[in-house]
C-alpha cells in the first residue's frame, strides 16, 4: 500500500471533499471537508484494500487564527497494510460542531470526549459527550491558547475552602 494509491482512491471517490494533502517526514496528512468526515472515515475503514480499521487517536489543535481556528486530527492505522494515515478537518470558531465518528470506530468515544473537554469542539451524534478530565461544571476549555497556563483563579473550588469560610463566619 503506497501513499499514491490511497490518494488515488480517495480522490476518485471524494473529488471535491479533499481540501489538500501534504507530506512531512514521510507522514501523509489529508485535509477533508468537515461535513464529509464520517463518509470518508467509513470509506477508509470499509474499503478492502485500504482497511483503516484501527483508530489510534483523535485530538484537537488550536491554531489561534481568524479563519479555521481549530483542527481535529484523526490518526488511523491499517492493521492489514501496517500503514499510518492522518486525517484533518478544520473547524471555524463560529461553528464548533464536527460530526462524530463513533459510528465508525467505538474507540472514538473517549478521544472525542477529550477533544471536547480540552477545546470545546462539539461532536454531533456522540452518544455521551461529557467532560472527561475536568469537572463537569468547569466553564473553560484549558488547551485553548487563550486559556492561561496558570489557570483562572476561582474557576475550580479548592478543597478545604468551605471549612475556612465556616471558621471565618
Amino acid at each position, binding site marked *: 500500500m503506497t501513499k499514491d494509491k490511497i490518494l488515488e482512491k480517495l480522490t476518485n471517490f471524494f473529488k471535491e471533499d479533499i481540501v489538500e494533502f501534504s507530506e512531512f517526514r514521510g507522514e501523509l496528512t489529508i485535509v477533508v471537508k468537515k461535513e464529509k468526515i464520517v463518509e470518508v472515515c467509513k470509506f477508509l475503514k470499509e474499503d478492502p484494500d485500504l482497511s483503516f480499521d484501527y483508530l*489510534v487517536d483523535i485530538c484537537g489543535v488550536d491554531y489561534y487564527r481568524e479563519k479555521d481556528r481549530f483542527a481535529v486530527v484523526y490518526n488511523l492505522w491499517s492493521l492489514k497494510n501496517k500503514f499510518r494515515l492522518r486525517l484533518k478537518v478544520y473547524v471555524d470558531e463560529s461553528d464548533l460542531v464536527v460530526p462524530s465518528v463513533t459510528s465508525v470506530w467505538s474507540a472514538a468515544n473517549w478521544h472525542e470526549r477529550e477533544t471536547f473537554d480540552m477545546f470545546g469542539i462539539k461532536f454531533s451524534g456522540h452518544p455521551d459527550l461529557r467532560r472527561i478530565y475536568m469537572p463537569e461544571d468547569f466553564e473553560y476549555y484549558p488547551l485553548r491558547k487563550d*486559556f492561561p497556563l496558570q489557570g483562572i483563579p476561582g474557576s475550580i473550588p479548592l478543597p478545604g475552602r468551605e471549612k475556612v469560610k465556616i471558621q471565618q463566619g
Partner: protein
Amino acid sequence: MEEKIEKIVESLGKKNIQAEFKEDPLGTEMILNVGPQHPATHGVLRLVLKLDGEYIVDAVPELGYLHRGKEKIAENMTFLEFLPHTDRMDYLAPLSNNTAYMLAVEKLFGIEAPKRAQYIRVIVSELSRIASHLVWLGTFAMDVGALTVFMWCFREREKILSIFDLVTGVRFTTSYARIGGVAQDITDEAIHAIREFIDNFPKELAQMEKLLNKNRIFIERTDGIGVITKEQAIDIGLTGPNLRAVGVPRDLRKDEPYLVYNELDFDIPVYEEGDCLARYYVRLDEMRESVKIIRQCIEKLPSGPVKADEPKATHPKKERIYTKMEELIHDFILTNFGGTPPVGEVYHAVENPKGELGFYIVSDGTGYPWRLKVKSPSFANIQALPLMLKGYMIADLVAIIGSIDPVMGEADK
C-alpha cells in the same frame, strides 16, 4: 379462605407484571462506586458499576483524578525541558517514555541518534519493559491472592532499578534520553550488571511461573474471565499486550521498526483467548523476549559517540561549551529559546510496556511545541474495560482491572 385466595388471584391477574419487571420493584439492580481511592484500581481510577446481585451489568470508568495538564505544560517549555514530565506519565517505565518522546522530537528536527545511543536506548527500554511487567505481574498475582509472587517480582525489579542507578544516575525518574542521543555513556560496570541480571532472570521467572501456572486458584480466577473478542478489541482500540492477547499481532517494534529493532531477532507472543490468563501469558513471554533482545544488544553494542553533533537541535558537550565561543552561543540559544525545528507536524509512536505510546507534535518553527499530544496506551485500554467487565462477577473486577495493567499517570496525563 377461598374467597381471599380468589381475590388475590384476581388482583394479580389485573397487574401488569411485565411492566413491573422492567421497573424492577424489588431493586435487584444496584449502583456501586469503586474508587478513586481503592487499592485494587491501581491508582486513582474510578468506576461506577451497575450490579445485578453480584453480576456486573454495566460499568462506567471515570478519569481525571490525576490530570495535571501535561499537554498544556508542554506548550510552554522548550522540547528538552519537557523531558522530565515524560518520566511522570507512565511512572513504571520512565526510560521507554523518555525514548519515545525523544524519537518524536528527533523526527521533527530531522536528526538521528548515533548507533551506540540507539543500542543503549533499546537496552534501557527493554529493561524498563521487564521492570514494568514485573510490577504488573506482582500486583496482578496479589490481586487474585498470590502474595509471594509480589515479593519475588519486587525483588527482581529492585535489581533493575539498581542497574538504572548505574546507567542513568537515578533509580526512578530517569530523564536519561537527550535530543539526538542519551545523557551519558553506559559504563562497563553497568554492562556487567545487566549481563548478570539477564543471565539470572530467566531462572527467577521460571520460579515465579511455577507458583502460578499450575496454581488452581490463580487459573480459576483468570481463565475465561474478562474475555474480549478480536473484533471488539480492534474496534475499541485496545493496544499493547492486551491486543496481542486477542490474537492481533500488532507490535510497533515489528510493524514500524524504530531504533535498531529491525537488526534484532525476537518474536511477538500472541495468544487467541482474550481473557485474563492470555494477557498473563503474553506479558510473561514478552519478558523472555526482552531478555533475548538485551542479550543481542550487549553483544552488538558498537563503540562511538552517544549523542549526535547537531548544534541547532541539541546541546553540545560541556567541555566544549566552556572552551569554544561557537558552542557557548549554541548552548545559550538552546537553553533559552530551544532549537529551531522546521514548521510541520510529526507523530512517532513506540511500543511501550503498556502499548502504543505516541507523541504528536505540531511545530510552528520555534523552540516550543505549538501543540503536543500524548497518545497514551492506558487511556485506550481503560476505554475497553466496560466491555471486559460486563457479565462477570464483582469479584472478577479486581482480576480484570489488574490484567489490563492501567497506569493512571499516563491515562490522565
